[in-house]
Structures are given as C-alpha cells and as structure tokens.
C-alpha cells in the first residue's frame, strides 16, 4: 500500500469510529441504533487492518479482547432482561418508562436515561448490541486473514510454517 494511504488511514479510522459511536448513542432519536453503529465501527477497524496488514495495524485486537467484549455485550442484554423480570413480572420490561405503573419510583429513576426524551433502557440495549456487532464482524475478518499469525511472530505467512500435529 502506498505511503499516502498509510499516513491518512489511521486518523480517518478514528473519525469513523467516533461517527459510529454517535450513531449508537442516538438510536432512539435519529435513524440508526446498535446494529448500524456497530457496523460502522467495524468498518473503521477493518479499514486499518486492510491497509496496514495484520501484523502492523495500530488497532490491535487480541483473542482475549474479542472473546471478552462479545460475551460482555450479549450478557448485558440478557441481564437487562432479567432485571426487568426481577423487578416486575415481565422479561425485558422497559423499567425506565413504566407504562403499566407497577414498579416503585426509585427503581424507575435508577434505570432511566438522563436525557430529554427519557427513553428508559433503550440506549443501554443499543450500547450492548453495538459492542457485540463491532467485535463480531471484526473477528470474522481477522480469522479470514489468518488468525494464527498473531502467535507466530514471523513477518510473512508460509503455509509450511503452520505446524499441524500428526494424527496417530
């Protein structure tokens, strides 16, 4: 890749990541939301991966990070639903906007989003889904580019270098 691309891509990727965060945060007002914003952040990460290559990319995602963030995203969604089940009788009940008035006011103020719209738990659900989508899409691209290169420390990928254990 040429030098102009290598100078330009890293600041541009950071701006695209900030735009993706803006799309996630405005999920309940503007078009967008968790899935769309997560795809935009993944686009910025994949941009850096393609231009710099897997070994020299300044945005480096290790295996533990991918597994951890994806699990946290999915678990946050499920735990918000269980919180709705515990405090009222319904799974994924919107505890911030209490349309049936069955939850005490203290819990309603706890789960409310401090915002003129008072949308309840919707922005937190968007946040969880955004985390999940951005890490999932980037993990697929990294595994297509050759995951095992992370552990080799060599500068080029030869297929003969990947050691396969012999099957008895």
């Amino acid at each position: 890749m040429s030098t102009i691309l290598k100078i330009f891509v890293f600041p541009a990727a950071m701006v695209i990541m900030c735009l993706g965060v803006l799309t996630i945060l405005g999920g309940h007002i503007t078009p967008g939301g968790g899935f769309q914003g997560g795809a935009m952040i993944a686009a910025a990460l994949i941009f850096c991966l393609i231009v710099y290559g897997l070994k020299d990319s300044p945005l480096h995602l290790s295996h533990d990070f991918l597994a951890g963030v994806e699990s946290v995203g999915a678990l946050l969604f499920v735990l918000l639903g269980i919180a709705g089940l515990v405090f009222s009788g319904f799974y994924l009940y919107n505890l911030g906007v209490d349309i049936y008035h069955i939850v005490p006011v203290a819990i309603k103020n706890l789960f409310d989003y401090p915002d003129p719209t008072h949308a309840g738990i919707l922005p937190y659900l968007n946040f969880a889904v955004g985390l999940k989508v951005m890490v999932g899409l980037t993990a697929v691209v990294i595994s297509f580019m050759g995951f095992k290169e992370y552990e080799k420390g060599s500068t080029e990928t030869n297929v003969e270098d990947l050691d396969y254990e012999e099957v008895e």
Partner: protein
Amino acid sequence: MSEGIRKIIMGFSLFIFAVTIFESTYQFKQMIYPGISYIYNYVGPKIAPNMVTIVVFDWRGYDTLGEALILVTAVIAVLLVFGRGKAQLGGK
C-alpha cells in the same frame, strides 16, 4: 408425459394461481383493521421519538434478543471452521 400435456397443465395451474392472488388483493385496503396500529401510535411517542427503535427494542425486544444470539452463534461457527488449527481435545 409429453411436452404438450405438460405445457397445458402448467398454463392451467398458473392461471388458477394468478386468479387467486389477484382476487385476494383486490380491495385489500378496506379489509385491514388497524387494531394494533392504534396502540402503537398512542403509546409510542410517549417513550421516544423514533418509532422503529421502539418497536424493535421495546415491543418486540424478544426478537432482538434472538437476533443478537444468532450473531454470536454465527461468529463462533465461522471461527471454528476457519480457525486454521487443531484443537487438543485430550484423551489418549
């Protein structure tokens, strides 16, 4: 079956199918009762301005939970197939 008989049967069944579809969509607008839509349009603007996000995450939040779990499963399956290595499963 010969070619001609097959063409006649195909044409006849296509004719019956087309008549059925057009008869079911004729004057479809008067047959719709917007029952649920009244509830959506009354409750929705009290929660947040974006009606699509309200329906996707609040009214049908259970389906979005299923969608999120599908994404996790798809990523795990792709990483298992394209991981390019062998897993040590133990045993002898």
